[in-house]
């Protein structure tokens, strides 16, 4: 048996878009096979087909040489295929055991018999070094632990082929190293792994072969050991890529944003941000690096006024804004590109023009005596769209919902920068975007800095932070671990700090 998984000429069309256009993927037994492609290239779709969540429009799938029809996840399970999804599929108020056995519950007299199951889970956990407590509730355990629960779910189902969809996006560099070790353990036990990731370094580190797809089309499969990162990136994007953005000289000016001893509570009313201090100067980009869920959201929400500051102060351009409303802060010169563009950034059911004036509809000339002035709104929206290259089907009256992700994000960035803010806070500004859009948005952020304004960049992508920032503040468990100059640090150092190790090397 040469291949354990063979997907031949898989095609999958959604309304208006071909997500997979005759893609072929072959996985050998005992290998780690990487799947590489831009956002939206069709990786998740392909894996969902392999896992039985979608049915291909055409194409064939062979598992261990047998042609199969994977009509639903149960069939996939029976074939020994398991998947860790990009977004974990765990029920928050169930225990680890309950989550793992969901769908094939051991029964005794009609009741769920968890005892035997949790014993088995404990064994599996020990065998693969996963260190999972079967009786813990999901909502009480860390993200890394949740991922290991997902892995256990597959192992519990005796999966032979394990699919990981962007498993590292939510992990610290240390947790990533840990995960890679686990993966190696797994292939050593004879399992096969399909790994989706955007990070070429990770592919280099663990994968044996790599299949590259672009815009739904198969580009090729390469032997990882003999292919350079640059080469893989070019295959993925289809042209030369520059990993760096040209920046002007670093000439920091006065302090425009100052955060002092800020303490903020999260939903559970625990301190998610503890006595955090930071300042951002005119003409600089300060990056906030940290693992997801370490207080970044609370920091940004406190600065923008979406969340109450429990203690501490915030100044904007010399004016204390700690207790101002969101709107007052916007009027004082604060702009915010939110983390979740569909949840926070846009009213999807509003037209593009209404979204573009979402914060300033009350200002002249857009409103006079509380009546909206449509012509003025439309004209302004057209300008913003032209400036920021926002493309839509019906101009300014297009519903925001029908825009592509990149255009949605460009509209938001355009809206925010058009506010002429003194301070721009950008959170994950390029998440889910293709390389072209990323380049464009990075250029815009740098332009904002070069024009002498302050930019606070919060991102989970270390590369992005390292590329754009002048200084980097590292946050862990709601505390500032340290601030370093971007020029004088590297990924490893930052990664250590993200794990909570101070820049001087001691535990913080």
């Amino acid at each position, binding site marked *: 048996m040469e291949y354990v998984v063979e997907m031949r000429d898989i095609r999958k069309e959604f309304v208006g878009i071909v997500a997979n256009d005759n893609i072929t993927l072959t996985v050998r037994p005992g290998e780690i096979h990487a799947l590489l492609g831009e956002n939206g290239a069709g990786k998740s779709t392909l894996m969902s087909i392999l896992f039985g969540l979608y049915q291909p429009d055409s194409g064939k799938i062979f598992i261990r040489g047998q042609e199969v029809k994977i009509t639903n996840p149960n069939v996939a399970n029976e074939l020994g295929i398991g998947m860790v999804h990009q977004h974990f599929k765990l029920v928050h108020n169930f225990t680890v055991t309950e989550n793992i056995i969901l769908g094939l519950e051991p029964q005794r007299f009609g009741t769920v018999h968890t005892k035997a199951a949790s014993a088995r889970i404990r064994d599996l956990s020990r065998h693969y070094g996963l260190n999972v407590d079967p009786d813990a509730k999901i909502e009480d355990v860390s993200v890394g632990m949740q991922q290991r629960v997902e892995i256990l779910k597959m192992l519990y189902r005796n999966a032979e082929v394990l699919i990981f969809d962007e498993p590292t996006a939510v992990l610290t560099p240390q947790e990533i190293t840990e995960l890679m070790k686990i993966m190696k353990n797994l292939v050593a036990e004879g399992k096969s792994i399909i790994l989706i990731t955007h990070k070429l370094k990770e592919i280099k580190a663990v994968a044996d072969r790599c299949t590259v797809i672009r815009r739904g089309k198969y580009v090729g499969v390469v032997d990882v050991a003999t292919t350079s990162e640059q080469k893989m990136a070019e295959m993925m994007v289809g042209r030369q890529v520059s990993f760096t953005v040209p920046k002007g000289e670093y000439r920091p000016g006065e302090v425009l944003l100052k955060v002092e001893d800020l303490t903020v509570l999260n939903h559970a009313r625990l301190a998610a941000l503890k006595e955090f201090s930071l300042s951002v100067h005119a003409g600089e980009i300060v990056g906030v690096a940290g693992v997801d869920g370490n207080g970044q959201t609370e920091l940004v929400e406190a600065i923008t006024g979406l969340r109450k500051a429990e203690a501490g102060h915030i100044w904007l351009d010399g004016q204390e804004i700690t207790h101002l*409303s969101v*709107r007052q802060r916007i009027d004082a010169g604060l702009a915010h590109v939110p983390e979740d563009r569909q949840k*926070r*950034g*846009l009213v999807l059911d509003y037209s593009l023009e209404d979204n573009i004036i979402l914060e300033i509809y009350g200002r002249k000339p857009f409103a006079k005596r509380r009546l*909206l002035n449509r012509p003025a709104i439309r004209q302004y929206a057209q300008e913003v769209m032209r400036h920021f290259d926002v493309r839509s089907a019906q101009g300014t009256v297009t519903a925001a919902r029908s825009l592509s992700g990149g255009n949605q994000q460009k509209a938001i960035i355009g809206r925010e920068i058009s506010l002429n803010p003194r301070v721009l806070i950008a959170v994950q500004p390029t998440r889910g975007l293709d390389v072209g859009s990323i380049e464009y948005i990075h250029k815009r952020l740098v332009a904002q800095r070069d024009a002498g304004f302050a930019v606070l960049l919060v991102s989970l992508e270390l590369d992005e932070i390292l590329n754009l920032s002048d200084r980097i503040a590292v946050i862990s468990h709601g505390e500032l671990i340290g601030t370093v100059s971007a020029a004088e640090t590297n990924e490893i150092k930052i990664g250590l700090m993200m794990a909570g190790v101070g820049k001087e090397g001691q535990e913080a």
Partner: protein
Amino acid sequence: MNFHKQKEVITLLATILLGLIAGALFMLFAGHDPLTGYKFLFRGGLMSLERVGNTLATATPLIFTGLSVAFAFKTGLFNIGAAGQMLFGGFCATAVGLTLPLDKPVLLLVMALVAMLAGALWAALPGWFKARFNVHEVVSTIMFNWIAYWLVYYFVPLYFKGSFETESRNIPLEASLRTPWLSQMFDGSYINIGLLLALAAVVLCAFLLQRTTLGFELKAVGFNRFAAEYAGIHAGRSIVVSMMLAGALAGLGGMTLYCGYATNIQIGILPSQGIDGIAVALLGANSPWGVLAAALFFGTLYSGKGFMNAMTSIPPEIADTIIATIIYFAATSVLIEKFLDRLWRKQQSKEGA
């Protein structure tokens, strides 16, 4: 008209048509002739000037409650408490009408203000509970319905007792929305200037939602509370404001019911127009003009069903059944839309070919 607007209107008409067809089937099953039934149903609502006036009068409170529900819906709230708001608003208006010795125009103005305020108060509290404490408005407005019910139940006999324990005194002519000129225009119908208020409310609501910054804010909160908060719109305040406006509309509807359609307020009755308002809003696709059309349609059915019952042996509940079926079809209009989409695509590909 673009395809989407067209689709909306066609869906609405198809929904009504399907409801009427379902009604016809029910009649057939029960052994009646649907054509005769419908003939008398519509004649009952429309065959004379007086009946048209009565239909309009029946529709008047429905326009208000429909607007109330639709308005709240636009801002993401489900106002199931229009009944309580209209009862409380109508009660307070009646109380003023029975108490203050003022000239008709002034008195009516004061009553209308009081009705709106009372209705607004009755909706503001659930709104505040929702905004501040995350209490689901469906439950809280139901509770407020019953509280209004019992307050009116005890206060009417206590302070405004009429000939009997069960109802208030009749309101004086000065406090009535009925006017001789309008009644005469419609041959002695009990149509009243509440209708004019309702029409004004439709226009105002449409204007408010489409043209004003307030409407912009309220709709933004309704569509996406998180984005609205992000943009500096005070979502909690918007929820309260929107509930208050919805309550004010219902309260005014209460005044048109108790001081226009009726002549006094009776205890022990939660006005059915509250729940009917939900149906009106749904059928009217939550747009003010849609609400107007739906309320007039329902008014016709309600006011015509008695005549149908008098002329045939078809039970009048068929009208309610038709309305209910229409609402179900409105809820499942996705099917109709999908069907229209398919038709449209077919046509396009034909044109393309």
